[in-house]
């Protein structure tokens, strides 16, 4: 018989707290050491219900598929058909999201323009105005109209192809931005009418309108300045997608760009990125419902962004009712952002390829999120543009493959009925049945 009183007890496995995880503890130590919150680029990194939680059903006895490589599956989309005299016609329903010169280098902006143009789609300016690199290499260029109005002028308004009034973005609905002083080169400072080297605050509200009634008049002014030619987009963050979409339609939008919380930013507080806004998946159906309730679905086009990575994501967003999608972070990765070839340099910055998000500091080894001329020179805009074009074409092929398997001869013919969900949460957010059931959680009448 063992005498337990004289033996050491068997060891237990050290157990770390789920609540106080290593990540959380490191954040606490960082805050205690610095006295300031963490700022970073990118979108939400936490796991949220996403397109991965949806599956296409594919064709069966009740649906017949289209022949891959033989039967046509159209991908074209026209944006801005409601009021604009000159809507934007794109070959593919995947656009490049707004990212500023300032946040990105000149060669990176050129590469975005080159890649988008080669793939038959549009790119978008950002906070900081329009650069010649971007205008010159972008066949279709959307000009953002932001609260800061950095670089805003009527000549650029007239030489763009569409105007995007930015009300919010998914990474920070309700928040403005800050471009830290180290990224304010002479050229960036000149474009923004500010001294070199200071932190440049981008306001969270527009300076000359508040609310949807004012916005309607602001849109009138922009249309009058541009001869009613340009499609007017309104970009909103994923906060209250039903009401915001309704109000944007009422205000006179041609296109609504809806950005979920996985959508990136150049620089914002980590606590903001991770805790404000809704996942992209949760935003689409309320926005589509608003369009349908207003009788405007397909008349006012819906562009979805925030975590689009593959042709499957594109197909799922369109099946849920979007007309197109927009990519930002994925486009940067295609250009070369976070590439493991720079691993040693990422390590020297205290991070690793795939996790680098200090875009605001301007030390990007890949030469994309920087104004350092030596780093920026690392990015060949021609080669990077080709990579982006390749990536866009692959995404399009992937989406077509899925659409044909669902028997659709246009990506826009995908519909919620083609989908099921792997989780109850995704089923509720997407408004499609949980796999293996006919249960749509939260659907009326349940």
């Amino acid at each position, binding site marked *: 018989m063992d005498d337990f009183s004289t033996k050491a007890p068997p060891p237990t496995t050290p157990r770390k707290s789920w609540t106080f995880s290593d990540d959380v503890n490191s954040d606490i130590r960082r805050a205690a050491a*610095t*006295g*300031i919150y963490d700022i970073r680029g990118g979108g939400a990194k936490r796991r949220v219900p996403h397109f991965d939680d949806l599956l296409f059903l594919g064709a069966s006895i009740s649906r017949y598929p289209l022949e891959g490589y033989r039967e046509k599956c159209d991908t074209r989309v026209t944006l801005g058909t409601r009021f604009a005299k000159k809507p934007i016609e794109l070959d593919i329903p995947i656009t490049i999201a707004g990212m500023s010169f300032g946040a990105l280098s000149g060669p990176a902006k050129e590469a975005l323009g080159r890649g988008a143009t080669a793939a038959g789609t549009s790119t978008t300016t950002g906070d900081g105005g329009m650069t010649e690199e971007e205008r010159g290499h972008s066949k279709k260029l959307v000009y953002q109209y932001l609260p*800061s*109005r950095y670089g*805003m*002028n*009527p000549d650029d*308004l007239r030489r763009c192809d569409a105007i995007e009034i930015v009300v919010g973005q998914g990474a920070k609905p309700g928040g403005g931005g*800050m471009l*830290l*002083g180290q990224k304010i080169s002479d050229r960036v400072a000149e474009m*923004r*009418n*500010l*001294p070199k*080297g*200071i*932190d440049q*605050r981008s*306001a969270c509200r527009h*300076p*000359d*309108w508040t609310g949807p009634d*004012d916005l309607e*008049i*602001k849109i*009138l*002014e922009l249309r*009058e*300045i*541009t*001869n*009613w030619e340009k499609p007017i987009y309104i970009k909103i963050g994923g906060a209250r997608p039903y009401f915001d979409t309704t109000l944007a339609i009422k205000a006179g939008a041609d296109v609504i760009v809806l950005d979920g919380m996985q959508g990136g930013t150049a620089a914002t507080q980590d606590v903001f990125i991770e805790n404000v806004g809704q996942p992209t998946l949760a935003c689409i159906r309320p926005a589509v419902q608003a369009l349908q309730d207003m009788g405007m679905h397909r008349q006012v086009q819906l562009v979805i962004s925030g975590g689009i990575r593959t042709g499957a994501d594109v197909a799922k967003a369109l099946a849920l009712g979007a007309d197109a999608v927009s990519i930002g972070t994925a486009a940067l990765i295609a250009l070369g952002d976070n590439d493991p070839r720079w691993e040693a340099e990422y390590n020297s910055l205290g991070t690793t390829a795939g996790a680098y998000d200090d875009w605001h500091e301007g030390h990007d080894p890949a030469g994309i999120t920087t104004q350092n001329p030596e780093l920026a020179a690392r990015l060949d805009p021609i080669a990077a543009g080709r990579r982006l074009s390749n990536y866009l074409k692959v995404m399009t092929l992937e989406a077509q493959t899925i659409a044909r398997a669902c028997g659709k001869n246009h990506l826009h013919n995908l519909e919620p009925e083609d989908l099921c969900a792997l989780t109850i949460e995704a089923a509720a957010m997407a408004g499609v049945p949980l796999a293996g059931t006919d249960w749509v959680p939260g659907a009326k009448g349940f």
Partner: protein
Amino acid sequence: MNLQTIDMAHVSLRELNTTLQKPEDASNATNWEVINSKGSHAIAVGLDAPIDVTIKGSTGYYCAGMNKQATIRVKGSAGPGVAENMMSGTVIIDGDASQYAGATGHGGLLVIKGNASSRCGISMKGIDIVVHGNIGHMSAFMAQSGNLVVLGDAGDALGDSLYEARLFVRGKVKSLGADCVEKEMRPEHIAILEDLLARSGADAKPEEFKRYGSARQLYNFHIDNASNY
């Protein structure tokens, strides 16, 4: 020099702006007048020619928005956002101006002979604004560059978070915003004021004004300044 009249009782806003944006297509006149404006929004926006436009009546939102080169006179009062994002030229309001007058303006001269409401000169980027009367709260918020001259009083939080804009006020300032301080009036500032007062038809002497500008303490974020925001 002959005067062309556009009557908004019979001409739509679209026709009005199309004509004024390309005046050479309609006439070789350099002087235009607009009657029966009835407070319409977006009158005379996006002009880009050295013409003189007189609007006989009050205007709604964004009159003279993004103006370049033109001289636009409002013989009445102006609604919100008059001369917003103006690039060059001159805009003269005989009456009062509502909120956001001259917002984000990059250049040119905006003269308001009456009072201006809140947020006058918000985020201004090089425009010169002269207000003969008083201005409301939060004026010159985040003002980047240019000159704001006020012959009367200024409301609360003048120049909050401003950058390099110069603010000149003859009357009382109810309160200064974050990082806005009174500064020394040097000869170069007197010269700027003399010029702006003369060009705006203001009856005032430069020596009667005080100058305000940025203390530049908030230009780079520092945690010790967090309570100032």
